[in-house]
């Protein structure tokens, strides 16, 4: 293992950033945003809107692209990433302009069901407090539920995977109850739990617990026999075999379970908030729909996409850290 020194020529994997490393494309991307801004500024409106937030958003995009480019002269990987994604950014800017044209500029897509980027950015700015609070509520509910569900899933998975008795008594229960979608429990959860938060936690717990325990048990019982034989001839006790051989061997499986559970939990979270809760993004969407303010619905959906992506990225970082030994084995 050689230590990296500054003199080492950085190695680039052209399979990761395979798009042309061309400055022209990046410049075009920035210019596309300028064009979208100019288009919005000069073309008259058919709908009555407040254009300021959208224009500021476009300006922010232009400035941040420029700043990122300047900063990336110091960070070669960032520069390569920017140039790789230049074509996408370019098309995204054009798509924004097209969307603007189809909605506020021409009215081809009618209100209230198809708001344009202007209405949505406007709503995001006007209603930012509510949206932020809703997003935080959803995130908190998600993490509490997922952590409770994953921890109990890992524990039951270990018990089932390691002890025959637990396997005998619990496996059938998990297999049968696991196929029930968590949202089916909503009426019961609302009736049994004192508030919407605890009933939400319960539903997300249900959604994640089954998946995680199932995968954990699979990982534990799939530990190669040779691992145990090696460890036993090295003087390992039963406890050591479980916690230092079987459980680490199951970690990739555990994460597969958690990641699968995560998408189940997103669905459960939104549905449970829509039905029973008085806070969160799911509730916000439902509430906005009640008032037929579809721009708010879209705004909440966009916020949801961003927050769920961040959540997935956080889980991914934890996973990559714990499974750093797999780097280079897979793919």
């Amino acid at each position: 293992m050689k230590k990296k020194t500054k003199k080492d020529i950085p190695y680039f994997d052209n399979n990761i950033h395979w798009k042309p490393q061309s400055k022209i494309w990046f410049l075009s991307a920035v210019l596309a945003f300028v064009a979208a801004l100019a288009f919005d500024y000069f073309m008259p409106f058919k709908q009555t809107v407040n254009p300021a937030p959208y224009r500021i958003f476009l300006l922010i995009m232009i400035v941040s692209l420029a700043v990122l480019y300047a900063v990336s002269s110091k960070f070669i990987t960032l520069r390569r990433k920017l140039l790789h994604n230049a074509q996408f950014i370019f098309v995204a800017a054009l798509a924004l302009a097209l969307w603007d044209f189809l909605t506020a500029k021409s009215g081809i897509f009618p209100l209230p069901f198809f708001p344009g980027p202007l209405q949505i950015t406007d709503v995001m700015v006007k209603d930012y407090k509510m949206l932020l609070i809703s997003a935080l509520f959803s995130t908190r509910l998600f993490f509490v539920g997922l952590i409770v569900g994953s921890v109990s899933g890992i524990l039951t998975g270990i018990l089932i995977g390691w002890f025959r008795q637990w396997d005998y008594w619990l496996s059938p229960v998990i297999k049968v109850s696991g196929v029930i979608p968590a949202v089916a429990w909503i009426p019961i959860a609302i009736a049994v739990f004192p508030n919407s938060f605890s009933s939400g936690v319960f539903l997300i717990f249900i959604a994640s617990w089954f998946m995680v325990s199932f995968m954990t048990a699979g990982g534990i019982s799939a530990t190669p026999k040779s691992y145990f034989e090696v460890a036993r001839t090295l003087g390992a006790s039963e406890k050591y075999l479980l916690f230092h051989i079987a459980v680490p061997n199951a970690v990739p499986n555990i994460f597969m379970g958690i990641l699968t559970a995560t998408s189940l939990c997103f669905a459960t979270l939104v549905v449970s908030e829509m039905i029973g809760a008085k806070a969160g993004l799911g509730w916000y969407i439902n509430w906005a729909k009640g008032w037929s303010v579809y721009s708010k619905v879209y705004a909440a959906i966009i916020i949801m996409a961003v927050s769920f992506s961040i959540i997935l990225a956080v889980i991914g970082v934890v996973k990559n850290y714990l499974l750093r030994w797999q780097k280079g084995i897979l793919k």
Partner: protein
Amino acid sequence: MSEPIITIKDVNSIYRDSFGHKIYALRNVNIELYDGEFISFIGPSGCGKTTLLRLIAGLDKPQSGTLSIQGNVIGKPDHERGYIFQQPTLFPWKTVEDNVAIGLKARGVYKENKNKIGEYINMIGLNGFEKAYPHEISGGMAQRVAIIRALINEPKILLLDEPLAALDAFKRIEMQSLLIKIWKTMKTTMAFVTHDVDEAIALSQRIVIMTSRPGKIRKIIDVKLGGRRDRNNDEFIALRKIILEELQLASILPEPEYSI
């Protein structure tokens, strides 16, 4: 010869094949392994040489007969009987040094023996690879790590179950000298299973020839060659001929060795 370290008495190991027939993996096996010797077990597939090693390790139990180490009956696997498998079987989530440390940690003697890890890694010439993960090193390196992982427990006997079978010819010769070096410096008793006749002659003081169905000891040959063993030496060639005849393989091709 010195004291016997392992005593094997009237050992039978039976399993049933898919038709329900009794198969003797080992039948009435009697042998003593002496303290500090290098003994090889050779024979065709199915002669029970691996079974015998697994019985000594305590990984399996015999149907009848007794195995004892210095007078104590062998029970569960123990760190005093180190075992090297054909595959290195390093744990992929542990670095080289963590793999070597398993024995110390599992026995709860890690703190006082920490510095031994570096010494052992030095011995096999893997310094600089302490923090590498198993998939980042070659098969030969991995097998060397597996060997010191067992050795760091200072076992009374090292059971080697075809540890070199998965390596190429160059690596094998390198590893053979490493085994001899370990045997000479650490005075560990070595019980070595192989189906390579030359390897057995090159390494051992005694060669146990086994036959299959039922698995039995056919003959034990004392190797009286000196320290440096030249494979083209007349005595070496003569010994090879004797062993091959004993194996009744002299006229037919030896079995191919598979590495998985």
